[in-house]
């Protein structure tokens, strides 16, 4: 549905995007992950035809963005980083304007706009002036604008930024719902968002794609060793020696006292070995009760740091 080949874009001497290629099949939700300034927004701006690339090609539904931009743009709904809103207009006026601007050919304008407003929880604010709305509502109006005309492709630049936690969950659900019939690229630097919403992750760093996989694979492929944080009631040195003697454990690091009369350790094991059971039995045999065992599951964050550091 979206094919990007050999995209390069420079700003002066800096390469904003450097020879990026990927394609997204119909109906896939792709997360564009990367630190600030990695080239996410630039890439999205090129895909939507807002910027032109120095070299390379973008095809939307087989239509070349460079050669026939008008036709290609009909397939895209775009929510930029800052929603493109006219603050003096009411929500209704604005959506009416966008409907005309995009030359949408859905017969029933009223029910189409109402349906989108309903899905996004905008029904109550439709007659209010956009400038007076809260940030969360503005973001949703921007979202509504992108959804007008039922485009096949949605490009969302940090769609949940500035929303409160409840709204974030709502918007994510909307995105997932939309993704059933549409192809979506969304950018974010919030990692849980990727695992929550996306089927595939493109990690971009310094204008280059450094990883392209689904979130689960990305986690298991790149993370050979698993780590657990454990809390044990006992003295530091003895417990450390005890744990490091268990077969399969590759390293033990004391983390300090988090709770009275106990000590926390970071235990790393060799890949493919489950050390939880031996750990439990050994500690209990030696009379050191195990108070907590928690696998470190923020591993996507580690991977992200690992990948983007490598890129530098």
């Amino acid at each position, binding site marked *: 549905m979206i094919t990007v080949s050999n995209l390069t874009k420079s700003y002066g001497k800096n390469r904003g995007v450097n020879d990026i290629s990927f394609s997204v099949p119909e109906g896939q939700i792709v997360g564009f992950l990367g630190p600030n300034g990695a080239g996410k927004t630039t890439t999205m701006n090129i895909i939507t035809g807002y910027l032109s690339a120095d070299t390379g090609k973008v095809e939307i539904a087989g239509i070349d963005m460079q050669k026939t931009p008008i036709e290609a743009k009909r397939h895209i709904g775009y929510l930029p980083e800052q929603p*493109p809103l006219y603050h003096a207009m009411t929500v209704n006026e604005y959506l009416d304007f966008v409907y005309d601007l995009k030359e949408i050919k859905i017969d029933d304008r009223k029910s189409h706009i109402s349906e989108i407003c309903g899905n996004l929880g905008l029904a109550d604010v439709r007659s209010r002036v956009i400038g007076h709305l809260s940030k969360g509502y503005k973001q949703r109006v921007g979202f509504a604008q992108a959804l007008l005309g039922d485009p096949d492709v949605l490009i969302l630049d940090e769609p949940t930024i500035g929303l409160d936690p409840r709204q974030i969950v709502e918007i994510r659900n909307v995105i997932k719902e939309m993704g059933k019939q549409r192809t979506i690229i969304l950018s974010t630097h919030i990692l849980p968002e990727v695992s929550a919403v996306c089927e595939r992750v493109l990690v971009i760093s310094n204008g280059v794609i450094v990883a392209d996989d689904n979130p689960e694979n990305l986690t298991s492929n790149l993370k050979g060793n698993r780590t657990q944080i454990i809390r044990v009631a006992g003295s530091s040195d003895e417990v450390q020696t005890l744990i490091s003697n268990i077969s399969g454990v590759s390293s033990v690091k004391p983390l300090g006292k988090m709770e009275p009369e106990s000590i926390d350790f970071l235990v790393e094991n060799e890949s493919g070995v489950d050390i939880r059971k031996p750990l439990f039995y050994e500690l209990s045999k030696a009379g050191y009760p195990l108070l907590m065992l928690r696998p470190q599951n923020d591993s996507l964050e580690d991977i992200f740091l690992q990948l983007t550091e490598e890129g530098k």
Partner: protein
Amino acid sequence: MQAIFKRDFGAYFTSAIGYVYISSYILVLNLYFYLVNILGASMSLAGIFSFMLLVMMFVTPILTMRVFSEDFKQKTDQLLLTAPVTSTAIVLGKFFSSLAVFGCLLALTILWPIALYIFGGFNLDEVVGNYIGIISIGAAYISIGVFVSAMTENQVIAAIGSLAIFIALYILEIVALFFYASGVLPTFIMRIFMFISIFGRYSDITRGLLALDTIVFFVSVCAFFLFLTTRVIEKRRKG
């Protein structure tokens, strides 16, 4: 194009700008009409149209400063440029919305010939000629203002920039005339100046000479600057 025209035209009147432009302009013009045509008992509209042209230099920037600058600032250009419309359609939609506000102002000035008609009589050729002339020159001015506003996201710079261009064009003619009169400027260069001279051409119109080449000239100026504006917009996309 229609959607953009409608939005921009409406925006002039949801903000204060449309009202400020029309009320300040019409106030000054009506004052002139009162002093010259009523107190001075003049039946000619030539003077007030020349005066209108002079004031136009100062009020047109109010009209055009926000045209593109505001979109760039608010990032709404991202909506316009990623919508399935050409940059020509965007430029034309915005240009015609400004021209339409100018048209609203002109509609109010219809009272002048009506007043003259009721209280004496007036020269129809002069009135028609002046209206056609002022519309074409207004369009040329607005196209220059639109062009300047496409080059900056700062409305103040857009306003001062177009004001500077208008005043420069005005002064250039006076300076050229001065040097020509003192024999410094060769005749063929003066001819070029007279050809591109907005005010020189306009004085033909106020005298009642509505030459086709003058109208063609203003329409060409307008087309030229609108074309340049689309190039500026395209250039921005290249980052």
